C-alpha cells in the first residue's frame, strides 16, 4: 500500500473510532433508558448537539495532549539510543 493510501486508511479509522465513541458516550449522557416515543424530544436533540460539539472539541484537545506527551517521551529517550 502506498504511504498516501495508508494515511487515508488511518485517517478513516480514526474518524470511525471518534464517531463511534461520540455516539455511545452521548447516547448515555442524553437519552434516558426508557422509550416513550421514537422521535428525539426537543431536550434530547439539544443535549445531543451540545454533547457532539463538546466531544469533538475535547477529543482534539486530548489528541494534542497525547502528541505532546509522546514528543516529550521521544525526546527523553533519545540519549539512551
Amino acid at each position: 500500500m502506498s504511504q498516501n493510501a495508508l494515511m487515508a486508511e488511518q485517517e478513516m479509522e480514526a474518524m470511525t473510532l471518534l464517531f463511534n465513541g461520540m455516539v455511545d458516550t452521548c447516547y448515555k449522557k442524553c437519552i434516558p433508558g426508557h422509550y416513550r416515543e421514537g422521535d428525539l424530544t426537543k431536550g434530547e436533540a439539544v443535549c445531543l448537539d451540545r454533547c457532539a460539539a463538546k466531544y469533538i472539541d475535547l477529543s482534539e484537545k486530548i489528541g494534542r495532549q497525547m502528541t505532546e506527551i509522546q514528543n516529550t517521551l521521544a525526546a527523553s529517550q533519545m540519549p539512551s539510543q
Partner: protein
Amino acid sequence: MEKKQMQDFLQLYSKLSIRCFSDCVNDFSTRTITDKESACTTLCVEKFIKMSQRMSQRFAEQHMINQQ
C-alpha cells in the same frame, strides 16, 4: 450491498439488539415477548437510528470545519 456496508449493518444490528433488549426486557417469567417489551423495542430502535443520523450530521459539520 458492499462488504464494508454489510459489516456496518451487522455491527449496528448487534449493538441495537444488546441495547434495546437490555433496556426493554426485564421479565423472565415467560419465554414470550410481551406487547410492552415489543413496543419499547420498536421505539428504542427508532430513537437510536434518529440519534445516529443526527450525530452523523453534526459530526460532518463540526469535524470537517475543525479539520480545515
